[in-house]
């Protein structure tokens, strides 16, 4: 029988660092999925995930065990991704004039018939990725967690460490910021 998370954590805290490896193996897919929502390049993603695991190892003593280890780890992951966004926010400025052909085609189809433009098209995903990259770090974090992952306000507050009112205020500002960016796309393409 495989040891439980609690048993592995207890072993690590007693000095058996090798017991950390099964935890890394078990939760890395989830952490990679989270990191890929905030970074594009695979080397950056691997660095973020490594930083998350290093922090998890160093702070393991602060894990009280009253909630699942996965929740504690996800809080750490989201906060590390937010730090990454803040550290890389200078790269946000870009223009929508350099759209790829599929992105351009998708926008044309949307302009012609908004209801029938396909949502599962890769071009639409690329467009939203471009828009998300231009958002400020808190706005991007909120749009990702609230609008794309459909997480409730309370859960976002727990994940990010922000208060519930702050999450609501930031959500309001984030939606306005996203609408402004999308209006910019429309303006650059059709004016």
């Amino acid at each position: 029988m495989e040891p439980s998370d609690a048993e592995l954590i207890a072993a690590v805290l007693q000095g058996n660092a090798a017991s950390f490896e099964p935890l890394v193996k078990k939760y890395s897919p989830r952490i990679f999925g989270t990191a890929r929502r905030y970074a594009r390049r695979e080397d950056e993603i691997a660095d973020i995930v490594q930083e998350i695991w290093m922090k998890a190892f160093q702070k393991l003593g602060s894990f009280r065990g009253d909630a699942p280890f996965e929740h504690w780890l996800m809080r750490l992951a989201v906060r590390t991704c937010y730090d990454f966004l803040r550290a890389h926010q200078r790269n946000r400025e870009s223009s929508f004039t350099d759209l790829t052909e599929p992105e351009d085609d998708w926008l044309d189809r949307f302009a012609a018939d908004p209801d029938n433009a396909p949502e599962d098209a890769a071009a639409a995903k690329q467009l939203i990725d471009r828009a998300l990259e231009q958002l400020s770090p808190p706005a991007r974090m909120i749009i990702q967690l609230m609008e794309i992952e459909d997480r409730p306000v309370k859960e976002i507050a727990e994940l990010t460490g922000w208060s519930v009112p702050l999450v609501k205020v930031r959500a309001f500002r984030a939606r306005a910021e996203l609408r402004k960016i999308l209006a910019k796309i429309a303006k650059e393409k059709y004016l």
Partner: protein
Amino acid sequence: MKPGKLERKLLAAAKAHPPSDAVPYAFEQRIMTALLRAPVPDAWAVWAGALWRAAAPCIAVAILCSVWTMVAPKHSDTASNNLSDDLEQTVLAAVTQEADALQ
């Protein structure tokens, strides 16, 4: 083009394409190597570092106190001009009072 509708479509597109959760080959070995290579903080080194960081503020406070004792105006004519006399009088106040009472 309606930005509100575009926003809904694009967010739906983002939901329809969740990111991959693939883990690079032997990633857990990379993590374990990094963990074992990470320097273990030495308690004495942390203590020595803290002492060095505290040294500058302590020196600054000592200099300020020295300057203040030299520059501060005298409060009254009855007070002694000598700081060491004042200190001695305060520290030995209880002994002096007891001696006075016995006399």
